[in-house]
Structure formats: structure tokens, C-alpha cells
């Protein structure tokens, strides 16, 4: 009698969660699509409540904002390129499980160096030499900014997330210092447009897009087909395995972060020399952080990242435009992007884990 009672008392939890070992790619895409769609619906509802406009009109206006004119389309793709560029720069670090949250700072020092070069030696150097030198220095300093945390990680295992975050703020203060010293009364540096890279087509856009597509291809090849890329993957998966197969883990960490930082520096250079021709503390505009999400959502795959970067920039530009038209605050874009990202992040759970409901029929006996 007591046995019967005792057996019944012991029940498994109603729901238990197990790791999925296999999921078809189609299903994974479907889950992500549902997540994006639900976040869209929620945001459309929210916007509808705020504006009382037909949601379809709202969505149309988002597309208007993104693709409405040829200039808008150019800007859309150019912005996508820049965001993608930063994400590409961060990706090798992430593949190595090194949380480089310092993209913002690494971009900023690249921009700062570029602006300083124009400001100090711009007049005394022939233009091609100036650009070349600036490019080299920007990348070098970006690399330096990346390698400092890497060194301490490799040597003493200092927490890289926190270290790279702090490096961002040091970069900001350097920029502010520079602006206060040499900027105008408002603390801005007047654009030195005479040093801009000559326009191709109708602006700086084409060059950005072209260059970053090239970098994207190179990065894809580097990670997938080069020996160094292979080492990065092995270190990221298991340091023990890496060591057993004779990979020098510290060297890989440092080398990878030089590349990561240098590429950020290069983007910083582009933002100045092929963009504003000036520097501000918001030149990276939070893209150092957004790029982390782009890279992560793109599964650290440069090709997928084109899509995720595009999604983010599309949302940014589309929502800002809609917001302006219907006199919503510009912050709507941030909210929208944040919500979409959180939905996608959350839906990964349903891809990686399986929820099992306990079957109740067992107790019939």
C-alpha cells in the first residue's frame, strides 16, 4: 500500500527541457522568422496606438524611409556597410570566445588618428601620401587599442569584456580632449573637406560599400579557409584541444585581437576620410555595440552578417523616417531595434532546446 503511494508521490516535473542535438535549418529559419514577425506585429501595434494610423501605412512609410529616394537607398546600403564592417572586425575575436566589447573605442581611435593627421599634417603632405599614411596609422592605433586587453587576457586572464568596455571610455575622453584643444567654441572640429577621399558617383557611399564587401569576402575566406582562421576556431572551441595540438593560445589571442582592432581602426578611418572629415565622440554612434549583436545574430558567419546588419540598419532608418512623419520621437528607432533584437535573442532558445511535456498516461497502470 505504502509502495503505491510512494511511487505516485514521485513525479517528474511537468515540463523538462533538453538540449536539441539536431534541428533542420528550415525549422531554425522558421523560428527566427516567427520571432522577427511577432516583434514587428507588437511594434506595429504600439505605433498604431500612438499614431492611430493604419499599420500598413506605417510599414509602407518605413520602406519609404529606407528606399524612398536613390539617396536614401545609397545611405541605407552605406550605413549597412559600415555596421557590417565593424561586425566583421569583431567576429574573429568572438569566434575565439573573446568578448570584444571595445569596437566602439577601437573605431573611435581610428577616427581620432585620421582627424589628427588631417589637422596637423594635412597641409604639408601630398594628398595620396596623406591618405596612405592616415590609413596605416588609423589601423595601427586601432590594432593597438585591441591588443592591450588581449595581452592582459593572454597573460593573466583579465576579464576582456570589462577591459574592452573601459577602453571605449578612454577613447571617448581622448577624443573630447582633442576637440577641446583644437575644436571651435562649441567643441566641434570643422570638417576638413579638402582632405576627403574623392567622391565616386554621388558621394562616399560607393567606396564604403565596395570596400566592405571586399573585406567581407576576405574575412569569410580568412575564417573559413586560412590556417589562422582554423586556429581561431579551435581555440574558441577548446583551449585544451588547441594546446594538445600545439597551438600557442596566447599568440592566437593576441594576433586575432590585433586584426580585430586594426579593422575597427580602418572603419574609423573610413568614417573620417570618406565621411565627415571631422571627429566627434559619437562618430561610432553605438555601432561598436550594435555590431556585437549583428555578429552574434549572424552566427559569426560573414555572409549571414550581411543580412543581420541590413535588418538593423533598415529598422533604424525606416523607423526614424516613420517617426518623423508621424511626429514620434526619434527614440522609436532604438525601441524598435531593441525589441526586435531581444525577440531574436530569445528565440534562439527554441532552436537550441527542446521542451518536453511529460506524458500523463503512464500512471494508468
Amino acid at each position, binding site marked *: 500500500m505504502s509502495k503505491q503511494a510512494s511511487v505516485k508521490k514521485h513525479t517528474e516535473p511537468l515540463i*523538462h*527541457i*533538453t*538540449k536539441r542535438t539536431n534541428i533542420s535549418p528550415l525549422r531554425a529559419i522558421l523560428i527566427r522568422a516567427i520571432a522577427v514577425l511577432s516583434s514587428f506585429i507588437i511594434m506595429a501595434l504600439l505605433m498604431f496606438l500612438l499614431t492611430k494610423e493604419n499599420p500598413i501605412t506605417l510599414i509602407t512609410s518605413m520602406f519609404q524611409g529606407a528606399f524612398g529616394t536613390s539617396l536614401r537607398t545609397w545611405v541605407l546600403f552605406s550605413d549597412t556597410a559600415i555596421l557590417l564592417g565593424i561586425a566583421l572586425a569583431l567576429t574573429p575575436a568572438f569566434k575565439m570566445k573573446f*568578448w570584444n*566589447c571595445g569596437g566602439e573605442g577601437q573605431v573611435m581611435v581610428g577616427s581620432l588618428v585620421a582627424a589628427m593627421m588631417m589637422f596637423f599634417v594635412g597641409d604639408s603632405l601630398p594628398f595620396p601620401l596623406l591618405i596612405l599614411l592616415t590609413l596605416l596609422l588609423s589601423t595601427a592605433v586601432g590594432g593597438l587599442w585591441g591588443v592591450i586587453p588581449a595581452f*592582459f587576457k593572454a597573460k*593573466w*586572464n*583579465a*576579464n576582456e*569584456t*570589462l*577591459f574592452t*568596455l*573601459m*577602453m*571605449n*571610455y*578612454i577613447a571617448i*575622453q*581622448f577624443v*573630447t*580632449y*582633442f576637440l*577641446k*584643444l583644437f575644436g571651435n567654441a562649441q567643441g566641434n572640429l570643422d570638417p576638413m573637406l579638402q582632405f576627403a577621399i574623392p567622391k565616386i558617383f554621388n558621394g562616399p557611399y560607393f567606396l564604403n560599400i565596395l570596400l566592405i564587401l571586399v573585406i567581407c569576402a576576405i574575412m569569410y575566406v580568412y575564417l573559413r579557409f586560412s590556417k589562422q582562421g582554423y586556429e581561431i576556431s579551435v581555440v574558441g572551441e577548446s583551449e585544451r584541444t588547441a594546446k594538445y595540438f600545439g597551438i600557442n593560445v596566447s599568440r592566437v589571442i593576441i594576433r586575432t585581437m590585433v586584426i580585430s582592432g586594426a579593422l575597427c581602426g580602418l572603419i574609423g578611418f573610413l568614417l573620417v576620410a570618406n565621411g565627415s572629415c571631422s571627429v566627434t565622440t559619437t562618430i561610432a554612434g*553605438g555601432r561598436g*555595440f*550594435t555590431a*556585437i*549583436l549583428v555578429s*552574434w545574430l549572424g552566427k559569426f558567419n560573414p555572409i549571414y552578417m550581411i543580412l543581420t546588419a541590413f535588418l538593423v540598419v533598415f529598422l533604424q532608418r525606416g523607423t526614424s523616417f516613420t517617426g518623423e512623419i508621424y511626429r*514620434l*520621437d*526619434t*527614440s*522609436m*528607432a*532604438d*525601441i*524598435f*531595434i*531593441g*525589441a526586435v*533584437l*531581444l525577440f531574436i*535573442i*530569445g528565440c*534562439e*532558445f527554441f532552436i*537550441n*532546446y527542446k521542451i518536453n511535456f511529460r506524458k500523463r498516461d503512464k500512471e494508468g497502470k
Partner: protein
Amino acid sequence: MTLITFLVSAIKFGMVLLFGSTGETITEKSGHLNLGLPGIMCVGTACGCIAEAIFFDLVGGRRGMENLAFLAVLIPILATLIGGALMGLIFSFLTVTLHANQNVTGLAMTTLGVGISDFLIASVDGYKFTAGAKFFNTSLPFADDLGAFGKLFFSYGIMIYLSIAVAIATSLVLNRTKVGLHLRAVGENPATADAAGINVTKYRYVATCTGSAIAGLGGLMFVMDYLNGNWEYVIDAIGWLCVALVIFTTWKPVFGIFCSIVFGAFYVAAEYIPGISLASKEIFKMLPFLVTIIVLIMISVKNKKENQPPASLGQSYFREER
């Protein structure tokens, strides 16, 4: 006297940070590295300001507020706590229940939080919550009579004392109570805590929500007290400063009182050094971050167990099925 004003200013700014770092410390003690802190502080602050503005309307403007000074302080505080806790809840749901990556979730939370707060603030008239600032500013009546001593210790609004009280209380709870012991165990070694019968999920949820709620108060104090009720779009930057401060305090809230004043001093120092150029001031503002990096390096090099981040910081816990 400049030394006194300098210290007063350092303490004021420092206590803003103390809220944030105490909140983040509670969160991190549970093993959560919440990089959404800047966004969470923004939302908490905005909720407080909105509540104050609504209160302003309800009681019929400034005069009504005068009569209910106590509520004019309490209501925004409560609203901030709720706003922060709700954000913490979202973060916990994603990272604990859905096992999402903490760094990525945190950064998305920051984007979302900054957006929400900007949106909220844009939707109210600033003067309505600015009107409440004086209640936050009110210092103890006898502060002026005690000269420099009085100024240094009693010339502040209620929030400063609250932040110190919260830091001390947090430290007591963490180090002297069973709840604190269990929380630290969860952050250090969730598997062991789980085996000992501690509900890891519950502790992570509660710690993150509590921490987020407290952190929000930092933003509220910054706007209502430090800036006299004027909203500035820099609360996220303060949030990052708080994340840095947690490292500087080596995860000890009471030590954090001292550390936050040092941080505050670094931050405001430039204003009080005579003859310093506008530009060099910016170099001073670099100090908190520089010092944090040095501390980070030092604790890594020394590798002393007592000063390390909680061992499971940043890692999700999933009890594998057997």
C-alpha cells in the same frame, strides 16, 4: 572652502554611482553580468520622472506638491524601483529561462532602455518633474549651522543617505544573512548551490530585479538632485561608469562607498583645480576608467580569490538532464 565644495560635489556625484554599482553588484553576485545596466538606469529614471509629472498633475501643480512633499519624493522613488525591476525581469527571463547569452542580451537591453527612456521623457513636460527637484534637494535644516563639518556631512538631499544606507544594507545582507550566503553561492558555483537545495533560478531572478531596481535610483538621483530636475541624455554613460565602479570596488558594496567618492572626485576634480585648461579637464575624466583598468589588471595578476569576480559571472546555468 573650495576643498569643501569639491568634496561635496565629489560625494554627490559619487553617490549617484554608488546606487548603480550596488545594484550591479547584487546582480553580479548571482552570476549575471548585466550589461543592460545603462539602459535599465535610463528606464528607471524616466519612470521616476514620469511618475513625478503625473503626481504634479494630480495634486494640482507646485502648491499641491508643497503640501505632500513626502509623497513627491516617495512616488518617483517607487516608480523608479518598479521600472528598473521590470527591466531586470526582462533580462532575467531571457538569460535564465531562455538561456540567452548575457552579454548580447545586456547590450540589446541597453539599446532598448535608452530608446524607451528617451521616448518617455519626450512625452512629458519637463517642468512638471523639475518642480519636484527641490524636495530631493532639501538638506537637513541644521547643516548650515555646523560650518564646514555640517556642509560636508549634512548638506545633501535624502537620496545620498539612502544610497549609503542601501550600500550598507546590501553588504549586511550579503555577508551576514543566509539569503546573502545562498546568493553568493549561486554566483560562485551554481551547481553546488543547486545540489545544496538552493533554487538557482529564483535567486538569479530576484537578485537581478532587485539590483536593477536599485540601480535605477542612481539615475533618479542624478536628474532630480545632482542636475536639479533637468534631464540630460547622459544617464547611459553614467551606467557604464557604474559597471566600471563595480570592478573598482572588487564587488564589495561598503568599500564601494569610498570607491564611489574617489570616482566622483576624479570626475569632478578638474572643475576645482585652478588654472587648468578646458581640455585637460577631459583627461581627468579619463581617470575613473584608467583606474578601473589598473584594478582589473591588478586583481588578475594577484589572482587573490577574495577579490575576483563571482566565479560563474556571465555563464548561464543549465542543469543537464541525466
